[in-house]
C-alpha cells in the first residue's frame, strides 16, 4: 500500500480501488469470523483456492490496483452473524448465500456456480420447504437494518483497499478537511448517539467535556472488553470491519484534540486482536495514522492492549487502570473519566459499537441518524441473539424494535418446539423480560422503566424448561466470581446472595429467603462502588419480580417447576420394571435404597442425595429421574 499524502491522493486511491472492486464481477466471500472458522471455513477457503488454481481460473486473493474483470475474487470476510448456519459462503454478483458448506461442496461451487453461474439449491438456506437463494431473502436478514454491520460479510475484513474501495475513510476526510472540532462534537451531540456499551450515556456530551478539558495530552479509549457472557457484537465488528471502528476513533481524536488512542480488547478474542493489529499497521503504512496525517497538522496513533480476563475491566476506571498496568479495580467517582481518565488525563471512553456509529453520523448528518429509531434512543442496535432460539446469531435492528419482532421474525421463534418463557437482556447487569413485555420497544428508556437494560446487547432466549431461579444463581455466581473485592457491598453482598440462591436450588430454601434476597439487593445497589456492583442484583430482583412463584415452589414445595434443578428431582424405582436384582442398593453411596432380592426395591427420599448413580446402574432401566 502506497502512502497517501493528501486529500487528492486519498480520493484518487479510493476511486481506483472502487473501480477495481467494481470490475471484479465474480466474488466468493468465505466467512472468516470466529464462528465460521471454528466450523471449518478456512479449509473451505483453501480448498476453493486450490481448485481454482487446478482449473486455471484466474483468482485474486487481494484487491489489485489494476482492475482485472475476468478474475474471481476469493476473500475472507467478516462475520455475517448467522453463525449457526456456518460455514457461510457468499457469491457475488448474485448475492447468493450458501450455508453449512463442507469442503466436499467446493468442487461443485467452482464448476457450477463460478464457471456456469448456476445456483446450487442444496446449499441454500431452506426454511419450511422454501428455498432462499439470495442472502437478503432469508427471513433472518430481511427484518434487519444493518448499518453498523453493513460491511460485515460483504468485504474482505483484512483489506484496507476494499474498505477504501467502498468509500471508507470519507467520514474522516470530511471531518478533517471540512469540519472544525466543535462542529464534529456538535454533529455527534445533535445525533443523540448514546453509548452502546450499556449505560446509554450521550456520546456527544462526553466528547464535549473532553474537548473543553485543558491538558497537555488527552486520550481516546475504545472499550472492546466485551465481557458479558452471551454477547459478541463488538467481537464481530472488530473482526469484520475493523477500519470502520478505527475511523470512528480517529474522528474522536480530531474532535477532542487527542493524539493517542488505546483499544482494550479481551484476551478471549484473539482474532479480533490480530485483525485490529493488521488494520492499524495498514493505516500506518497508508499514512492514515501517524504524524501529519494527509498533510495536515493532525497526528494520531493507536495502541492495542489485551485484557487478561477480568470482567470488571469493562468498567471505565478499572479499564484505564488496567491499561496503566495495574489491577483493574474501579475507583470512586467523581472525578469522571472525561476529566481524570487514562494516566489521569481527560479521556473519551466509548465502546466499539459506539465508535463504529460515528463515521455514519459524520457522513450522513445528525438529522439522518435521528430519523432511525425513537427520538430519545436513535440509531440501530446490534444484539447477540442466543439461547433456545431457532436462529442464533448477530443481528442489527433499529432501536425501539419490539422483542416480539426480534424473537419471532428475525430469530424465527423458539427452537425444538419449546415455549417462550423469558429473555435475559443486558447480561449480569440486566434483567429478564417475559411474555407480557413482548411488545415493549427495546430502547434505553423503555427497558429501564421495566427494570432491565439494553446493556451491551446480549439477548439470551429461554424456554419453559429453563429454571429462572437457576438463571439468577448463574448470574450471581458470575458476578461473585468477577467481583474485584474492593468494596464490601459487592464482595460480601454478592457472596451472601449467591449462598442463598444455591441453598434454594438445592432444595434447602427457607421461609424469608426471598425477602432477605431483596433486602441484600437493595443495599448492594445503593452502596456498591461501581456500576457492576450496583447492577449485580438486577437478575435476581427481576426474576423475583416476574417469577416469584418459581422461587416459592423451590422454597416451600421443594419442587422445580421447570424440572431443571437436579437436586430437586425425585429419583424413583418403577415397581413394574424392577426385578429385584439389588444392584442399585449396592452402588448407592448413602444406602438410601433398600429391599429384598427378587422383590421390589425402594428409595428413601429423605436419604437420597440425587447423585443419579443408581439410574445408570440399573440393568432394567427401572430407575428414573423426574
Amino acid at each position, binding site marked *: 500500500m502506497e502512502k497517501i499524502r493528501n486529500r487528492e491522493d486519498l480520493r484518487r486511491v479510493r476511486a481506483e480501488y472502487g473501480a477495481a472492486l467494481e470490475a471484479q464481477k465474480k466474488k466468493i466471500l468465505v466467512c472468516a469470523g470466529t464462528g465460521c472458522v471454528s466450523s471449518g471455513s478456512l479449509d473451505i477457503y483453501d480448498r476453493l483456492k486450490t481448485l481454482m488454481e487446478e482449473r486455471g481460473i484466474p483468482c485474486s486473493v487481494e484487491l489489485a490496483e489494476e482492475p482485472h474483470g475476468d478474475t474471481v475474487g476469493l476473500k475472507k470476510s467478516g462475520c455475517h452473524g448467522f453463525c449457526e448456519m456456518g460455514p457461510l459462503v457468499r457469491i457475488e454478483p448474485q448475492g447468493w448465500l450458501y450455508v453449512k458448506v463442507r469442503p466436499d461442496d467446493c468442487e461443485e461451487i467452482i464448476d457450477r456456480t463460478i464457471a456456469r453461474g448456476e445456483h446450487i439449491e442444496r446449499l441454500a438456506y431452506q426454511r419450511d420447504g422454501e428455498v432462499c437463494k439470495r442472502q437478503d431473502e432469508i427471513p433472518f436478514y430481511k427484518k434487519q437494518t444493518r448499518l453498523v454491520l453493513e460491511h460485515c460479510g460483504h468485504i474482505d475484513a483484512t483489506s484496507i483497499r476494499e474498505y477504501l474501495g467502498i468509500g471508507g475513510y470519507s467520514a474522516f476526510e470530511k471531518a478533517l478537511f471540512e469540519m472544525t472540532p466543535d462542529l464534529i462534537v456538535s454533529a455527534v451531540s445533535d445525533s443523540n448517539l448514546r453509548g452502546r456499551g450499556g449505560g446509554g450515556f450521550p456520546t456527544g456530551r462526553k466528547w464535549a467535556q473532553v474537548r473543553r478539558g485543558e491538558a497537555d495530552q488527552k486520550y481516546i479509549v475504545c472499550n472492546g472488553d466485551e465481557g458479558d457472557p452471551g454477547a459478541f457484537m463488538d467481537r464481530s465488528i472488530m473482526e469484520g470491519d475493523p477500519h470502520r471502528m478505527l475511523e470512528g476513533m480517529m474522528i474522536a481524536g480530531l474532535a477532542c484534540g487527542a493524539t493517542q488512542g488505546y483499544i482494550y480488547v479481551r484476551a478471549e478474542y484473539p482474532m479480533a486482536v490480530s485483525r485490529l493489529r493488521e488494520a492499524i499497521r495498514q493505516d500506518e503504512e497508508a499514512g492514515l495514522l501517524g504524524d501529519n496525517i494527509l498533510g495536515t497538522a493532525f497526528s494520531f496513533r493507536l495502541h492495542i492492549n489485551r485484557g487478561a480476563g477480568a470482567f470488571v475491566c469493562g468498567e471505565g476506571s478499572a479499564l484505564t487502570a488496567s491499561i496503566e498496568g*495495574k489491577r483493574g479495580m474501579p475507583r470512586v467517582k467523581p472525578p469522571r473519566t472525561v476529566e481524570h481518565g487514562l494516566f489521569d488525563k481527560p479521556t473519551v471512553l466509548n465502546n466499539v459499537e459506539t465508535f463504529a456509529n460515528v463515521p455514519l453520523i459524520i457522513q450522513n448528518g445528525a438529522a439522518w441518524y435521528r430519523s432511525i429509531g425513537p427520538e430519545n434512543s436513535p440509531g440501530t442496535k446490534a444484539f447477540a441473539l442466543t439461547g433456545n432460539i431457532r436462529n442464533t446469531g448477530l443481528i442489527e435492528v433499529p432501536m425501539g424494535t419490539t422483542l416480539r419482532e426480534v424473537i419471532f421474525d428475525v430469530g424465527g421463534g423458539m427452537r425444538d418446539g419449546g415455549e417462550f418463557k423469558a429473555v435475559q437482556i443486558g447480561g449480569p447487569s440486566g434483567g429478564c423480560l417475559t411474555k407480557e413485555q413482548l411488545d415493549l420497544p427495546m430502547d434505553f428508556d423503555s427497558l429501564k422503566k421495566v427494570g432491565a437494560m439494553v446493556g451491551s446487547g446480549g439477548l439470551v432466549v429461554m424456554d419453559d424448561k429453563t429454571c429462572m431461579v437457576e438463571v439468577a444463581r448463574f448470574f450471581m455466581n458470575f458476578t461473585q466470581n*468477577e467481583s474485584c473485592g474492593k468494596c464490601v457491598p459487592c464482595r460480601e453482598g454478592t457472596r451472601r446472595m449467591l449462598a442463598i440462591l444455591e441453598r434454594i436450588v438445592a432444595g434447602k430454601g427457607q421461609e424469608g429467603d426471598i425477602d432477605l434476597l431483596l433486602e441484600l439487593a437493595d443495599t448492594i445497589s445503593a452502596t456498591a462502588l461501581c456500576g457492576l456492583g450496583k447492577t449485580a442484583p438486577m437478575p435476581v430482583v427481576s426474576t423475583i419480580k416476574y417469577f416469584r412463584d418459581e422461587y416459592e415452589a423451590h422454597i416451600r414445595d421443594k419442587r422445580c417447576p421447570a424440572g431443571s434443578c437436579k437436586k430437586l428431582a425425585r429419583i424413583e424405582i418403577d415397581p413394574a420394571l424392577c426385578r429385584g436384582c439389588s444392584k442399585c442398593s449396592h452402588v448407592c453411596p448413602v444406602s438410601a435404597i433398600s429391599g429384598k432380592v427378587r422383590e421390589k426395591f425402594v428409595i428413601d427420599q429423605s436419604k437420597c442425595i440425587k447423585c443419579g448413580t443408581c439410574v445408570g446402574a440399573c440393568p432394567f432401566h427401572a430407575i428414573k429421574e423426574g
Partner: protein
Amino acid sequence: MNESFDFSVMDGILAEHGCSESNIIAILQDTQEHYRYLPREVFPYLARKLRVSEAKLYSVATFYENFSLDPKGKYVIRVCDGTACHVRKSIPILERLRSELGLSETKKTTDDMLFTVETVSCLGSCGLAPVLTVNGKVYPTMTPDKAAEILGELKEKA
C-alpha cells in the same frame, strides 16, 4: 531460586515492550505465552528490571483470571460457561471431562501434566453453543460424548 533459569527469554520480551510499568500486563502475557504459566523465578527478575516491587507484580498476576502461577497441562481445555452455552447445557460437558480425567473444581490439571480443564465466562461464539477450546482452537456445538471423543483423540496424539 532455580540457578539454571534462562532469563534470555525474559530479556527478549522486555526489549520488545520496553521496561515501563504500564507494560506489566503485556509482559506477563508474553511470559505466560512462552512458559504456559508464570514461573516464580521471573518475578524478582522482572521487579528489578521494571523497578517495581515483587508485590506489585504479584498483585497484578493474581488479579487477572488469565494468569496462572501453576504449570498447566499440555492441552488446556476451556469449557465455555457463558449464558448461551449454559442454557444449552455446558455443565454436563464439564462434568464429563472432569470425570474422565479424574479432575475436579479444585484439581484442574492431571498428574501426568497432559490436561488442564477450566471454565471460561464467554468466548463470544454463542451462535455455536455450547463450545469448548483446546489450546485456543474452538470446538463448536459440543455434547458430553463429543467432548469425550476429543479427549480420546488428544490422548492418542500425546
